[in-house]
């Protein structure tokens, strides 16, 4: 999977930044816009050190006007540049939803393929640190639902870099959703796993290619982002109970690698889909439906593990109750046996 002989390990944020810096050095058309991305280096370290190298002109602090700057990214992209715009928390999408849903996502199609929108929208996602209902969502399903956006969700540093290179070079709009808990920020300690060896050179990871993070025979666990690490931890526990779990990291939601999932379910017969987004009308339903369409006969049991349909509550016991934990995954996988 990773760059073999490299002994250097990076946090996810540093891997992401190294890809952005590389592309900015190679291509003057790449620039970054967001709130607190210049001097602060991104609230979640997404642009650490970039202003020092590229200056305020290319690492732009912008007014708190998401409609204007995300829309400006759409326009600059259509004019031939390769802007990256950052939504500090994905939860703030609402104030700029038209630019995302109706412009960024649709202009290519409405123009009959004559207009391209080569931009990246980055957004911090996820909970687990009690930031409550307006700062903890992932909203994977909300964005994957609208046709016209490619959507990637890295789970490790290695993926963060390769997916970022691909996102910037891609001629279509890409939404790059990074989980705060995985970034390796000092004040929000990451679990073991996202810090990985990362090749120094540039490399691209294709969209629509899921990664089997652990091989198994008895149950397929499909997930993404933070929950890849929780699923891997669950798989360890399951192994000691004699259950062999395969863990699939989707890496991109659009396109979705149905083939890898179906192949796995044909082997294991059991599907557990784990998502940090709301349960209804989301990733768990979509993945399950795809497997049902393609391989209904192979499917013995299905379990969905997701946030029940309530906003993310603030208080610790409440947040813990709604965000799927390792134990919830173990229990769901065990129920399929």
């Amino acid at each position: 999977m990773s760059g073999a002989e490299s002994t250097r390990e990076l946090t996810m944020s540093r891997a992401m930044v190294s890809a952005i810096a590389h592309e900015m050095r190679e291509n003057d058309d790449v620039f970054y816009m967001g709130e607190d991305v210049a001097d602060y280096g991104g609230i979640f370290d997404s642009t650490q050190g970039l202003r020092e190298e590229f200056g305020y002109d290319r690492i732009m602090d912008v007014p708190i006007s998401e409609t204007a700057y995300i829309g400006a990214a759409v326009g600059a992209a259509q004019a031939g540049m390769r802007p990256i715009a950052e939504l500090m928390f994905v939860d703030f999408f609402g104030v700029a939803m038209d630019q995302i849903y109706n412009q960024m996502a649709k202009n290519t199609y409405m123009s009959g393929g004559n207009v391209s929108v080569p931009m990246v929208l980055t957004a911090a996602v996820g909970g687990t640190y009690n930031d409550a209902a307006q700062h903890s969502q992932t909203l994977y399903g909300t964005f994957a639902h609208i046709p016209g956006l490619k959507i990637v969700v890295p789970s490790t540093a290695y993926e963060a870099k390769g997916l970022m290179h691909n996102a910037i070079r891609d001629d279509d709009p890409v939404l790059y959703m990074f989980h705060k808990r995985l970034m390796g920020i000092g004040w929000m300690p990451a679990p073991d796993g996202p810090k990985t060896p990362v090749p120094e050179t540039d490399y691209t990871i294709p969209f629509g290619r899921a990664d089997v993070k652990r091989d198994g025979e008895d149950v397929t666990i499909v997930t993404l982002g933070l929950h890849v690490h929780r699923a891997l931890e669950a798989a360890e526990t399951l192994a000691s109970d004699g259950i062999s779990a395969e863990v699939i990291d989707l890496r991109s939601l659009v396109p979705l690698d149905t083939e890898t999932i179906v192949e796995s379910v044909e082997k294991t017969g059991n599907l557990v889909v784990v998502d940090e987004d709301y349960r209804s009308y989301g990733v768990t339903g979509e993945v399950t439906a795809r497997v049902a369409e393609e391989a209904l006969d192979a499917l013995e049991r299905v379990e969905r593990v997701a946030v029940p349909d309530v906003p993310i509550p603030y208080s610790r016991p409440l947040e813990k109750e709604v965000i799927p934990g390792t134990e919830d995954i173990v229990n769901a996988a065990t129920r399929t046996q």
Partner: protein
Amino acid sequence: MTEHNERVAVQLDEWPDDVESDEGVVVNWFVSEGATITESESLCEVQIEKVSLDVYAPASGTLTEIRCGEDDEFERGETLAWVTPTPSED
């Protein structure tokens, strides 16, 4: 004549002056014990209060010992690791 190689301490160069605490925490190591490292590459990241800082390799060579692992606390001036420099050629 090649001198015998003395190991070199890995330390935070400068304690930030806008913090009150005399203690920090190592939050990330980017290389592991035994790794070959190049002078001035970032070896680890430490946090003092909420200020994050990188600690750089004092010399090229081998990271022979990590004394403060991830999540370990350290005090101002404490040695975080030891580097054994590559013998020079002349």
